[in-house]
């Protein structure tokens, strides 16, 4: 066999072996690589107890409540299967909005409320002009009204 063919096989086998090894490592790391846990995972006791972790999901519509001190906020995070109550003291990021993604870091309190000490807004992969968003909202409203009137 020619030397260059040997080198070719060496490189191919090497890369294939590395890919398998990397795959196994990443698979083993799987739960640790996750940046956040969903409410379903937390309710299924997959999140660490007595230790800081991140909770991610959508902020439930009309769930945001501010206390009179102006800093303490309560809201709910859902993954559309389970919902969790979150309490946070501090300034929310500009993009924090009901109905949008959020990642909160903190601990699970004994009462089942997630006590966050950091809240990050998660934005989705959609980019569009405000007019398009308005049009979509109008369309949705029109649809809803249509449904209401036909009922």
């Amino acid at each position, binding site marked *: 066999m020619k030397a260059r063919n040997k080198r070719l096989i060496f490189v191919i086998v090497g890369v294939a072996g590395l890919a398998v090894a990397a795959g196994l490592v990443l698979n083993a790391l799987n739960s640790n*690589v996750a*940046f956040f846990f969903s409410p379903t995972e937390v309710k299924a006791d997959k999140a660490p107890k007595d230790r800081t972790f991140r909770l991610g999901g959508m902020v439930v519509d009309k769930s945001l409540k501010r206390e009179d001190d102006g800093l303490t906020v309560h809201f709910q995070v859902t993954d559309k299967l389970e919902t969790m109550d979150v309490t946070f003291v501090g300034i929310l990021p*500009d*993009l924090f*909005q009901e109905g949008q993604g959020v*990642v909160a870091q903190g601990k699970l309190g004994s009462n089942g409320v997630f006590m966050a000490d950091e809240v990050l807004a*998660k*934005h989705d992969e959609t980019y569009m*002009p405000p007019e398009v968003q308005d049009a979509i909202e109008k369309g949705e409203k029109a649809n809803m009204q249509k449904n209401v009137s036909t009922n």
Partner: protein
Amino acid sequence: MAKSRFWLYFSSPKTFYPFSGKLIPWCVGVAAVLMAVGLYMGLLVTPPDYRMGDSYRIIYIHVPAVWMSMIIYMVMAGWAAVGLIWNVKLAEMMAGALAPTGAIFTVIGLWTGALWGRPTWGAYWVWDARLTTYLVMLFLYMGYIALRSAIDDPRRASKASALLAIVGGINVPIIYFSVKWWNTLHQPFTVAPGQESKIDPTMLWTMMIMVIAFWAYTLAVSLIRVRCDILEREKNSSWVAELLQGSSAGNKQ
């Protein structure tokens, strides 16, 4: 055997040198024009985003730079493998010439990402899978460049660094799929093969113009770099001597 002779023709530094010299002005021109058009459209023509307002406009630098840095890594590792397996000198030089540009685009990607993350997420940096694996790529680039320059003999330097480049190549698909495999703070694919794009068409086109501009820029600077490398490594050959004589006599080639 005509096909293999065609590739052999361009794999010789002697024929590649004048050929690449002709390509460079075109690449520079395309890069300059498209970058101007892309920035104009990105900053003034495209609409703001419905949630992020104007801050999303950094996408026109961030995404093309990040894509470019990952593509450059794969191409660099590919050339390094060709150089290692078939002993092609020009491939070794191409791999080395791409590394600095790839590293610079990685830094731009991290930097613009941080500037975008602060107003959007509320943090410059988080250790999620996408950001962390991407940072690893910067270290791979830096390690590759450092290893290459640490060994004096250029052929030995190319062989040693080629192994690092090939091994590090495993990281690139991990970066790419990280947002799909794990939940990350970074949003998943907006534009991907086999998926309807989730970005407004004007925004997409502007981004693509910047992508082509970055490609042209990368081609131009890596060709300039590889030409320097060719002259340095072939300085004892007769064609370089002739070239230098020609240029010192005032005749441009």
